[in-house]
Structures are given as C-alpha cells and as structure tokens.
C-alpha cells in the first residue's frame, strides 16, 4: 500500500467522520460527539503530517518512480531545492495547503475550553473543505501518483525557482491562505447562530493569516526583484495579483471589524470582506496552479480548474443564501453620523481597498473572460493598474495620516483645527524643504507630504496615550512609555504596521520616481557612469556551482572618486540539465541607493549590462519584512474586551462567552 495515499485516505475518512460527528452533535445535542470529533481532527493533522513527511522523503531519496518527484526534481538538483520542490507543482501545493489547515484546526481542537458553540458550528465548514481537498489529492491532483516505469532521472526544477525565495514565498503564502479559512468559517457560524462575536474570535486568526499573506507577498516581491531581470519589485503580473487580492480584502476586513467591535456597525461589510478574502484565496490558487494563465507559475494543462471553480461557486451561493435567510438578525447599527469622522474614515478605507481589489481583479480576470467568451486573448499592461492604484495609494496614505486623530462620530471644525493644524503644517514645511533638495516630482512631493502627515499624527496620538498613562501613574518617561505600550499594544502594533506601509510607499515612490537605468556595452577595464556612480568592469569570471555554470561580470563602483562597492556581480546561469540560460540579477545597497546589475550578455572581454540606481529601495524590505511583522506580532499578543454585549442582548446568543480564554468579557 502506498504510504502517502494511505495516510490521505485515512485522513479523508476521519475528516468525514469529524464532519458527521459535528453535525450530529449539533442536531442531537450530544457533546460527547464533539470530543471524539476533536480527537479525529488531531488525527487528521497527524496523518497529513505523515503524508507530507513522506513526500519530503520521496524527494530527498530522489524516488523518480513518483511522477511528481520526477517532474520537479533531478539528480543534479541541490538538496535544498529538492526539498522545496515539494510545493513546486499544483499537487504538492494542495497538500501543503491541506496540511496547514489541518494543523490549524488541530490547534483549535486541542484547546478544549474554547471549543464553544460558535466554533462547533464553524468547524464543519473547514471539514467540508478539507474533505474536498483530500478527495482532490486522491483523484485529480495526486502528489503520490506513481509511474509504471522508473525514470533514470527527473526533469529538474524550473531554474527560476532555484532561488532562496522558493523556501519562503510559497510556504508563507500558504500559511496565509490556510489561515483565511478559519475567520471565514467563523463568519458562516456567526451568521447562522446570529452571533456577532464571530469577529472577535476571528480576529487573531485573521491577523495570523494576514501575517502569512503579507510575508508571502513581500517574499514574492523580493524574489521578483532579485531573480527576474527587469529590476522591479512589482509588475502586476496575473500571478502577483492573485496573491495580492486576498491581502487587500483581508486588510480591509481587519480594519472594518473594529467598527463592528466598537459600534456594532459595518456588519455586512465584514461578512462580504471575509467571504471575498476566502474566495480570492481559492481564486488565487486556481490562477497560479491550474495553468489557466501563462506565466512563470504555470504548470501546463491541468484538470483541477473545474474543481476550484465549482468550489468557489458553491461557497458564494451558499453564503449568499445564508445571508439572505438570516438577513433580519444581521442588522447593523447606524454608525455614520458625519462624513468627517473616524467611522467614516473606516468606510473610506473599505472603499479604497475595494476599489483597488476591483481594478486588480478586473485586469487579471478580463483576459480569461475574453479568451473564454470572445475567443481572443488580450494582455492588460501595467499602465492600467498603476493609473488606478497609484491615486488610490495616495488616498490611502492621507487617510492613514488622518485616522489617528480624527474624532469619533463627528469632527467639528474646531476639533479639526486643534488636531490637524500642526501635522499639516509639518507636512507643508517638509514639502517646501524638500523642493530645493531635489524632490520636485509631483508624486515624490505627495509622498513626502503624506509621510510627514502620517508620522506626525501617529506621533501625536502615541504621545497622548503616553500622557494618559503618565496621569494614571507617573514613573518617569521610559516606564510611562513601556506601560503605555503594554496597555495599548493593539494601537501601538497597528501604528507600527502603518509605519511599515509608509516605508513601503516611500520606498516605492523613491525607487520608481528617481530610478536611473541604462544599458551599457562594456569592455573590461572600462568605466561607465549612471547617476552619481561610476561603474568599472573589472573582470569576467567563470565557474561551476552545483548544477549550473556561472558566468560573472565583476564590478567596482565609485562615488565621487571613492570606491563604495567592490566585487559586485552581474551573473548568467547556464543550467546544464535544462539546457537553458538565465540572467541572475544582483542588487547591492550603497547608502540609500540600490545598485542593480542585470547582465544581458557576457563575452570573454566584455559584457552588456543593464544598470539601475534606485534610491530608497532598501526601505521596502526593512518596512515590509521587519517593521510589519513586528507590528502584527504585537497585535496578535493582545486580547480585546467584548464591548458589544449590550448590542447582542436582543440577539440570540447560543454560546458561553465566559469560557473563551482568548478574549476577556466586560
């Protein structure tokens, strides 16, 4: 018996059992069934772990009898990439997704105390999905399919995937994708039970998923930057868009649930946003893994597309029917008293994210629709996405600048005066100072004004929080700050995320507006100038590394006569097995600039190299990887008091709120 498929079959059976146990337990009100279901769920996690370890093992032992191993690895593939080939293809990716989901629900199942009525109703949704995935893994998307012969060698991994990004991008992205199903399931349960506290329960899982999605998108961007030779961090490629879409709606969701928490409003928004997030997650997988779109990620013809599409249709229909059925118990409180208020700013936040999602979704899907219904194919160029999303990004930037200080309910003119005069003045002064310093481009000036506004308002609000702490108990500035931080982690964490986004926006503005690029035909010993830098081609080198032949053009870089960089490389890789040649660009950070080298051709005595100087590029990675992650982790560490108990008083709650360890009850 085949180990992997056996494990998956048993997991499928357990999954069906757990699903039946939940439904029966709810229907017949037998709590023992939930206990056995929870054990089954933990069993599922064990089995998917076994199946996954087995797949890793097949790759490590280079067992080419297995079709998946043969297609995505080869004898000459370095071991590290052989291991990561697990998720090189559609089948392994689906297994990874199922594995992560099963681990997440096992964590929930193991925490007996919080397995309340809401969770008992949410889990069947996850189990139905997991059962469906197991079914796919055993029929149309089989990672453990064996060939009836033993190939001498495998095909090898796509050279573009033989990069460190291969370890981080798919794994973090699926970490996020798997995490999205939990808030989604809680939403369904919440509607069914007319229990609005689903947003509280969903919050941490949404944050966890958001962490994965953010990291996944950042790694994808960094990977594109360091592997694809056009020297950019975002190309609006359909596959990039696929992972960006759920991130957009999830970001909107996380903000919008705060209004439901505090004021009982925006309930339909939250329902729709998390529905879209899960649908877009599946859609993203459909786009990248079923071969529908020709891109770096395609894997040839696949039969799985109808399975994903059918799933999306059923989920959409079922959710909308459920919402219609329970419509009367979802009534939101009316929270919008003024167009100038913090509540309104959350609404604008949602509008901006939805507009961005709509434009990216349209641009990504239109070619598919065109091909399917009109018979001809088109490509949507980056200009469309940029023209729509750059203004949206600017609007978002200024919204970020306004939100920390704007009043709830209705901001009066005097309030606006009191709070915003100084930050706005700071922004204007920054613009004025920046102008003679060379920042004269419109978008750069806007970025400067927006960033200073954001920094100023956030600083003001943080100072207020610290001052409040000081009034409670003054223990000196440092202790006040740490106390204030500890008691307001959610705010501080959130603001940190804002600053991270700010860094990304500033970086993008600097790199794009002030980028200098030129392609040079160089001779060894020659020096070529771009921006403030002089690039000298010092030598051409050739060596073999693992499974590739490397040709390198080496550079020394000077600025104002001083050597600032030595041994910078522009590389070309020739993969012996695949008989293909790839450019490997390299980026080096010197001061605030990134110096980017992309070899187009290398001969014995010279090279044609595209050079780029991109200011502020480094800020994107610091912001997106370190600051953002830290902010999210700080937010995850918090607990939120349930303020909506009064609102829920006239709604039927079938849960024991006191049993929830993750949130405190007021």
């Amino acid at each position, binding site marked *: 018996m085949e180990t992997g498929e056996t494990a998956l079959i048993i997991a499928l059976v357990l999954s069906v059992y757990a699903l039946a146990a939940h439904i029966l337990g709810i229907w017949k009100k037998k709590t023992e069934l939930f206990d056995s279901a929870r054990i089954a769920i933990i069993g599922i996690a064990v089995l998917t772990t076994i199946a996954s370890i087995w797949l890793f093992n097949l790759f490590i032992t280079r067992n*080419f009898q297995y079709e998946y191993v*043969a*297609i995505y690895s080869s004898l000459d593939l370095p071991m590290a990439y052989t291991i990561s080939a697990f998720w090189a293809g559609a089948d392994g990716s689906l297994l990874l997704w199922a594995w992560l989901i099963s681990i997440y629900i096992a964590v929930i199942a193991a925490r007996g105390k919080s397995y309340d009525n809401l969770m008992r109703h949410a889990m069947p949704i996850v189990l139905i999905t997991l059962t469906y995935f197991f079914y796919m893994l055993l029929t149309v998307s089989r990672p453990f399919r064996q*060939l009836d*012969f*033993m*190939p*001498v*060698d*495998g*095909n090898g991994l*796509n*050279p*573009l995937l033989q990069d460190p990004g291969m370890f981080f991008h798919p794994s973090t992205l699926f970490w996020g994708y798997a995490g999205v199903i939990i808030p989604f399931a809680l939403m369904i349960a919440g509607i069914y039970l007319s229990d609005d506290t689903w947003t509280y329960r969903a919050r941490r899982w949404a944050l966890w998923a958001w962490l994965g999605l953010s990291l996944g998108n950042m790694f994808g961007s960094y990977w594109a930057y360091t592997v*694809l*030779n056009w020297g950019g961090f975002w190309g609006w490629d359909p596959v990039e868009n696929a992972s960006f879409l759920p991130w957009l709606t999830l970001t909107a969701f996380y903000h919008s649930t705060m209004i439901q928490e505090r004021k009982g409003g925006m309930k339909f928004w939250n329902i729709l946003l998390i529905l879209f997030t899960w649908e877009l997650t599946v859609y993203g997988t459909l786009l990248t893994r079923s071969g529908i779109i*020709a891109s*770096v990620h*395609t*894997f*040839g*013809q696949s039969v799985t597309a109808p399975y994903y599409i059918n799933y999306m249709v059923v989920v959409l229909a079922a959710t909308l029917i459920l919402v219609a059925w329970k419509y009367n118990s979802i009534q939101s409180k009316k929270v919008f008293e003024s*167009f100038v208020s913090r509540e309104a700013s959350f609404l604008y936040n949602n509008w901006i994210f939805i*507009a961005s999602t709509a*434009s990216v979704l*349209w*641009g990504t899907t*239109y*070619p598919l629709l065109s091909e399917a219904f009109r018979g*001809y*194919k*088109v*490509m*949507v*160029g*980056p*200009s*469309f*996405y940029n*023209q*729509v999303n750059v203004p949206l990004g600017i609007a978002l930037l200024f919204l970020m600048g306004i939100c920390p200080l704007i009043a709830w309910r209705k901001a009066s003119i005097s309030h606006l005066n009191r709070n915003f005069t100084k930050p706005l003045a700071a922004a204007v002064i920054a613009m004025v100072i920046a102008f003679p310093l060379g920042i004269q481009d419109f978008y750069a000036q806007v970025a400067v004004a927006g960033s200073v506004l954001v920094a100023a308002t956030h600083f003001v609000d943080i100072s207020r929080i610290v001052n409040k702490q000081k009034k409670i108990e003054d223990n000196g500035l440092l202790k006040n700050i740490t106390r204030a931080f500890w008691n307001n982690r959610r705010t501080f964490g959130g603001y940190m995320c804002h600053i991270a986004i700010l860094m990304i926006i500033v970086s993008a503005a600097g790199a794009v507006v002030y980028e200098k690029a030129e*392609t040079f*035909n160089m001779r060894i010993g020659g020096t070529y100038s771009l921006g403030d830098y002089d690039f000298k081609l010092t030598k051409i080198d050739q060596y073999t590394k693992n499974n590739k032949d490397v040709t390198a053009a080496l550079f020394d870089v000077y600025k104002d006569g001083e050597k600032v960089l030595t041994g910078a490389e522009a590389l*070309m890789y020739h993969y012996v097995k*695949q*008989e*293909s*040649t*790839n*450019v490997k660009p390299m980026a080096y950070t010197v001061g605030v600039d990134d110096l980017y080298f*992309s*070899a*187009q*051709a*290398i*001969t014995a005595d*010279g090279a*044609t190299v*595209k050079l780029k100087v991109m200011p502020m590029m480094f800020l994107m990675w610091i912001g997106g990887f370190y600051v953002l992650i830290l902010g999210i982790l700080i937010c995850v560490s918090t607990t939120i008091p349930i303020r909506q108990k009064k609102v829920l008083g006239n709604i039927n709650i079938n849960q024991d709120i006191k049993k929830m360890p993750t949130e405190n009850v007021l």
Partner: protein
Amino acid sequence: MRVEDLHANERDRMNKKQKNMLGIGIMAVLILYLSAQSFSNALSFYYEVDEFAAKADSLNGKIVNVNGTIVKGSTVWEPEKARLTFNLTDRNSTITVVSNQGMPGNYKEGIPAVVTGYYMNGTFAANQVVTKCPSKYGGDLDHWDHNET
C-alpha cells in the same frame, strides 16, 4: 418655532446629505470613466503566429503579443550586441523575432514563447520575450529501458 419651519429645516438637512451623496456619486462615475479609459489603453492583443502574420502589415507598429514556438536551429545570439534573433512558429506560419534585451529567462529552442513588441521591416522587434515553462510532459522522462514506447 412653527411646525412648518421645523419641516423646512429637516428638508434642508436631507438636502445636504443628498448633495453629499450626489457629489460622491459624480466622483464615482468620473473615477469609473477614467479607469475604463486607462483600461482600454492598456490592452494589447494576443495573436498566434499565423493570425499575426496575416494582420502584420495592417497593424502600423502597434504593440502586440504573439504566441508561438521557438524554432530549433534558428537562434542567432550576438553577445556583443546582446541581440537575440530566432524564428517563432505555430506550424502554419513563421516570423523572425529580434530582441535587444539580452537573453530572456529560461530561453531554450523548441519551447513555447510569447513575444511582445511590434512589426517593423519584415521582422518582429520584441521588447519582451517570455518563455513558457515546458508543459507537464514536454521534457520526456528518461525511461531506463529504451525499447519502451
């Protein structure tokens, strides 16, 4: 205050809200219109080689995408100029493609590729060449016993 005045005040307040909604509505329509314009400007058509060959002269230098397979033995690589020349075919027609952008990623003869650019003087000047990953069964898995079919 008289009842009529109260009603009048209420009507004025409603009008303010209606005005705001109207303003937002107008902005939304404007944004949609601009987006639609931007969208149609960003579209570029996608042809197979034979469709393109038939239309090539009438395109007047418009940027298009052409999908075909790189012909084996047709590659001319001039590293000093970073110039790549090859033929693209779909078994019905063949065109010659020239790219000055250096070696595209995963370049290999015999695999599908999409070239983006325009037609000029009998050749296709590509500013982008994207090779498609070989299909699932494209690279034949090496059987141990070579007598197998």
